[in-house]
């Protein structure tokens, strides 16, 4: 690991000033950053340790019924917060389906949003990667790419965003609260992550020095609590990134869908909000036929970026099954295997 200066600022303004200098990186839980530094994928000259900044570790109910989650809240603390899990069960389920217990104890809310792709060519410094080294090319194109993107990819980059947490968050209209040199601003999570286009190195809306201080959920996000699930298919039962995942949330009244949210994970360089599918769901009968139409709408623009055409059909099936699971109701307690297709979900088919 390359040598670096270590700074532990006492205030948010001090942190922003230090991190605005070129070559700086924020350190919070460190679970992704240290891994990247050990592999030489990133080599910051200055580490700005924000892990002790005051005020960023709180979960606060807002007067307007929303929720504000401090950027330094640990994944495990959020998922196991009883009031949080009751109001936003799909978010808790997504958190607990990600990583391992040890990593969830260290990893933070802000860090989860900022984690880098797990594309193996991004991680292999001997491979060409436009995201790691702009203009170098993309060895994933034409390489081992069965797990790569099927939506929103470009010839410059076909990597996916690996987060589980962000998938239900984007479905529930989460907003990222950012503090920078020019003050504080709010960016929707949907707009926060960028698609690769010609500049895959520009992964999100942050400018140099910008610090995520919180993630907000609007009041309406809690209205889905009775019918919200996260479903994640991976190559082993636990402790693996999603091949495809889906967060589904419904409000159903008299058999009709009164409100619907749907987002996909593992399919694009950002958590993928499926708005055209939501439009299909809204006002329709809450039935498997409706869900299949919504799945078709969600994947209408999908195309394989390599040996991954199977992910498109897999995603359709996962969407249908996630919606069926949401319709059958949020379980009283999360299953032993959160988000797993091997959990027994009443009313859901098991052959997705």
């Amino acid at each position, binding site marked *: 690991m390359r040598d670096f200066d270590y700074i532990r600022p006492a205030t948010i303004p001090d942190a922003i000033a230090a991190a605005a200098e070129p070559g700086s990186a924020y*350190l919070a839980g460190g679970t992704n950053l240290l891994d990247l530094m050990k592999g030489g994928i990133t080599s910051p000259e200055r580490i700005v340790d924000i892990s002790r900044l005051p005020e960023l570790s709180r979960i606060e109910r807002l007067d307007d019924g929303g929720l504000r989650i401090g950027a330094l809240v640990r994944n495990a603390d959020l998922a196991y917060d009883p009031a949080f899990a009751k109001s936003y069960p799909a978010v808790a389920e997504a958190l607990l389906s990600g990583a*391992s217990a*040890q990593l969830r104890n260290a990893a933070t809310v802000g860090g989860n949003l900022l984690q880098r792709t797990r594309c193996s060519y991004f991680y292999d410094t001997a491979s060409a990667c436009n995201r790691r080294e702009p203009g170098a090319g993309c060895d994933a194109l034409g390489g081992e790419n069965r797990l790569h993107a099927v939506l929103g990819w470009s010839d410059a980059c076909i990597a996916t965003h690996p987060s589980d947490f962000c998938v239900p968050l984007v479905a529930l209209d989460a907003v990222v609260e950012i503090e920078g040199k020019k003050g504080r601003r709010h960016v929707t999570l949907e707009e926060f992550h960028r698609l690769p286009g010609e500049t895959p190195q520009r992964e999100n809306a942050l400018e140099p020095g910008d610090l995520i201080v919180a993630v907000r959920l609007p009041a309406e996000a809690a209205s889905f609590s009775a019918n919200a699930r996260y479903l994640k298919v991976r190559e082993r039962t636990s402790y693996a990134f999603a091949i495809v995942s889906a967060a589904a949330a419904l409000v159903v009244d008299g058999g009709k869908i009164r409100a619907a949210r749907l987002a996909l994970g593992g399919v694009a360089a950002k958590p993928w909000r499926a708005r055209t599918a939501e439009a299909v769901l809204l006002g329709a009968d809450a039935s498997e036929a409706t869900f299949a139409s919504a799945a078709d709408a969600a994947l209408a623009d999908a195309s394989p970026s390599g040996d991954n055409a199977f992910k498109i059909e897999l995603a359709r099936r996962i969407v249908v099954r996630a919606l069926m699971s949401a319709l059958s109701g949020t379980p009283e307690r999360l299953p032993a295997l959160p988000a797993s297709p091997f959990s027994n979900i009443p009313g859901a088919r098991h052959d997705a």
Partner: protein
Amino acid sequence: MTSLPITLTINGHRHELEVDPRVTLLDLLRERLDLTGTKKGCDRGQCGACTVLVDGKRINSCLALAVSHDGANVLTIEGVAHGEELHPVQAAFIAHDGFQCGFCTPGQIMSTLGLIAEGQAGDDPERIREGLSGNICRCAAYGGIVEAVLEAQQQLAKADRRTAA
């Protein structure tokens, strides 16, 4: 980069140290303090062999910079037994053959201590397996590990009841 002063309480002993900021908690334990019970497996957070408790919570010490944990209270496998008397989790791993080669065992035991403290798994083997999925055992002693966790939990609950009575 010059070394930075930090203080750590490790297994109840206070250490005042000067560390290079690049040094992980894992390397500090093993290379500086000769606490080699904590193992370096993958060194990338994937295997769990380096699991320790920091302020009561299990983490991968390979992905923790020592300087960032200045002031922390660390428990490693060396601090688990009471003198010659094994901790109930250690005794249960032996009784149930919860290991074969033993390399992952310190991490498995520290992770089990964290799992029990979290109180989320109860006596459901599936929840225990899921809760320990961050600890790989290449000998695949998983069956014995789950049995050991179940028995250790029972022993600890009994001990709690005795203390409470």
